[in-house]
């Protein structure tokens, strides 16, 4: 089983542990992961805020590279990159005239046929079916599954989980032996793109999220996006200042939770890299 991967910039830098845990888990399930060679940044929030054409061309180059390298299906662990890549593919399929413009800009052939999976879809497709026998240490914790914005919205592009009160991560965590809680901030925005430019805003938005999870007794927040992770984890100091309350619940990636349940080494999952200590 070979699967392409588009790691994206965060996974190479601030979210190294996400990459590490994805690779560790994939290996445990005999999935060969092939990185798209010479990939570029998807442009993230900045590109679509300033130029529509740029915001389409950057992801298009990535998808074209994947096509050239013969990859039929890629996983995009970063929810933001996933959203940009899926959005671009959708937009270009709908609008042939944009497609030709973009093809011109990237100077490469682009078909738009690569299958794009987010991390939860990848897990559902290739890991969940074989997971039961591998669990050595049921992940028996109360968890708040945090989906964020870009994993589920907009639904006509992503065609993934439902937009309100999504369930896919909760279902996945239940399979690991966890007890996902019902909470109110599953899909509220963490502040994402404003993390550096408006730290206070991010502290407010992420603060509400962390507080609700803590109030309802969650032992950890599970995320599927490096942006969400860095806001909820690295910005914890600001969050705690905003809430005027010290909240210590750690923030884990889905793949880290799986890794722990199937007994992988904590180092290999990069848990030591978190700002908020992971003590579960």
């Amino acid at each position, binding site marked *: 089983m070979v699967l392409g991967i588009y790691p994206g910039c965060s996974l190479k830098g601030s979210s190294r542990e996400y990459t590490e845990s994805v690779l560790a888990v994939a290996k445990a399930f005999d999935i060969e992961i092939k990185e798209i060679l010479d990939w570029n940044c998807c442009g993230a929030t900045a590109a679509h805020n300033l130029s529509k054409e740029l915001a389409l061309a950057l992801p298009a180059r990535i998808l074209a590279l994947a096509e050239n390298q013969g990859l039929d299906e890629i996983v995009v662990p970063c929810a933001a990159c996933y959203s940009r890549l899926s959005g671009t593919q959708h937009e270009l399929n709908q609008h042939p005239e944009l497609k030709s413009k973009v093809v011109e800009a990237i100077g490469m052939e682009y078909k738009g046929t690569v299958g794009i999976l987010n991390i939860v879809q990848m897990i559902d497709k290739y890991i969940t079916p074989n997971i039961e026998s591998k669990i050595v240490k049921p992940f028996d914790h109360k968890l708040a599954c945090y989906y964020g914005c870009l994993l589920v919205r907009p639904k006509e592009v992503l065609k993934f989980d*439902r*937009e*309100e*009160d999504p369930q896919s991560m909760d279902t996945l965590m239940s399979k690991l032996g966890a007890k996902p809680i*019902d909470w*109110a901030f599953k899909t509220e925005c963490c502040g994402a793109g404003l993390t550096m430019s408006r730290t206070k805003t991010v502290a407010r938005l992420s603060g509400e999220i962390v507080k*609700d999870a803590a*109030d309802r007794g969650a032992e950890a927040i599970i995320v599927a996006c490096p942006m969400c992770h860095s806001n909820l984890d690295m910005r914890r100091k600001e969050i705690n200042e905003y809430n005027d309350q010290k909240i210590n619940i750690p923030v884990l990636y889905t793949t880290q939770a799986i890794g722990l349940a199937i007994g992988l080494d904590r180092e290999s999952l990069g848990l030591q890299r978190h700002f908020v200590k992971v003590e579960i």
Partner: protein
Amino acid sequence: MSRIGVFVCHCGENISATVNCQKVAETASGYEGVVHSVDYKYMCSDPGQTLIKQAIKDKNLTGVVVAACSPRMHEPTFRKACNEGGLNPFMCEMANLREHCSWVHDKGDLTTEKAIDVVRTQVEKVKRNQPLTDIKVPVTKTALVIGGGIAGIQTSLDIANCGHKVILIEKDPSIGGHMSQLSETFPTLDCSQCILTPRMVEVAQHPNITLYTYAELESLDGFIGNFTAKIRKKAKSIDEKLCTGCGLCTTKCPTKKIPSEFNEGLGFRPAVYVPFPQAVPNIPVIDRINCTYYIKGKCKVCEKVCPTKAIVFDQEDEIIEVAVGAIVVATGFGIKQPDFFPEYGYGKYPDVITGMQFERLASASGPTFGEIKRPSDGQVPKKIVFIACAGSRDEAKGIPYCSKICCMYTAKHAMLYQHKVHGGESTVFYMDIRAAGKNYEEFVRRAIEEDTVKYVRGRVSRVYEKNGKLIVKGVDTLLGAMPVEIEADMVVLATAGVANPGAEELAQKLHISYDGYKFFAESHPKLKPIETNTGGIMVAGACQSIRDIPESVSMASGAAVKVACLFSQNELTREPLIAVVNRCAAPLYSTCVGCFLCQSACPYQAIEREEIKDRSGKLIKSIAKVNPGLCQGCGTCVAFCRSRSIDIQGYTHDQVYNEVMALLNEY
């Protein structure tokens, strides 16, 4: 030799605004056989019709083409006019210059050219028309009413009071419909059941009404005046003749915790039950899905306690076949259910309820005996939020229309809440207040001014629960779109009214049309709001579009009048647009070779076998024959017949062929 008259209508400016009517008339006057061609402002007006009648006499016309609106609109009008002018009504055809031309194209030569083409086809067609006479068919003076809500009840009583027999069928165990579930009614706040139950009893006791509850339409055959309906009477597991309605079985039934449909899941009922105390008929049914006996094979407590031995466990569904002359469909509406409002947490938070659930809470006969209490913990809500347009006017949810009744019942709910919970705070989030009705606006103002209901103009984005409170995130768009957050104890959704889940299937059984939302379609949006496109079938009440009680009742009475009109005749005339098998001289007698493949194609079993015999009685040949009483004129047999021995009057091979040729030769 044909002598055709062409009459081009301006329809005020509806046609003449984009079509050069004068040119159309001039061009038509040059066609072979056309001896008279004029244009006029309103052909359907009295003077317009007189023009036609006069021309028939003066010019000795043999055929008339009226180029005006859709034949579906005025064909009967002009055929009647021709008849009065002394011409066989079927020698008149219409060219559709309005719906199919002037209204859908811009002003210009191409539009006028199209109009000319359309007129020419009808001229060529009418040249080949044959005088026809209407077919007479008898009328069965019994009406079938489907649905026993307020509309069905009203229409049944009205028809029955005209002296005609009525068969009323209702799918639930009791008649009464949604109205029986309501607490009070707007704008008078009189008790719904108090005004409804006398009507229900009247239905049960009326000598002209046969009532079948727990019954649905199985199939329908036939046509106006002569329908045959099969009714499936579902097994109640109770012998209705023996049951006295004492209710012992319902009190002794050990399975008691089944969510009550009547109470919208807010209360319970046993497995053998009458839906509510005032049910008509007051005869219980056994719910076989939940009854212990049907699940496990033992129990039979009801059988033991029944004093009249009325329990019949092995009762089977019964199919009753009835002959009826007219049908009124009054099947009402449905309400959107959980999962439709995930952002409001409906189905997830017990204290987020629908308007209908609120009715049950507010009803004296409801699960809380009229006290407003939270379903979750029985507490009286101190703060309550009403969300109007929950689903309605929401394209994204597939319901772009306004459900019409919500503004009024929400005002009523808020009012009832303020009356019942002293010191309570109620907020209504609304988009527009649509209170167009007698005393409606005054009613809403009363809620705001006298009962201190807070109205906030804006839609709620989300409801979630925290620490036992429901956090309602709304907005006040009249304050420059200021976000508003309310911690409420209860949220009531004014849920959209939708078509009944079985509406599509029923429409297909009845062969009536329905709109994109599965509401039954009326024959004309303004002038025939009660009739359907299928003769003899009317609609009444909310099955046609969402309506309140006074509207449903008026429509029901209207439907009753339509039925009574129909039944005032002993014979109906039907258009003679039916199939015929040709006959010719011996030795051929008919070109039909008697393969009878048309028989299997006919949806109405209207094809019979005719044996042609010589004088000695020896069979010469068997040919097909159409039973004019059964043929509905679809023409499927016509297109199927290889030897073209069967043809359909009004759409004969000769007519349609020349229509098409006329179109293309010049086009």
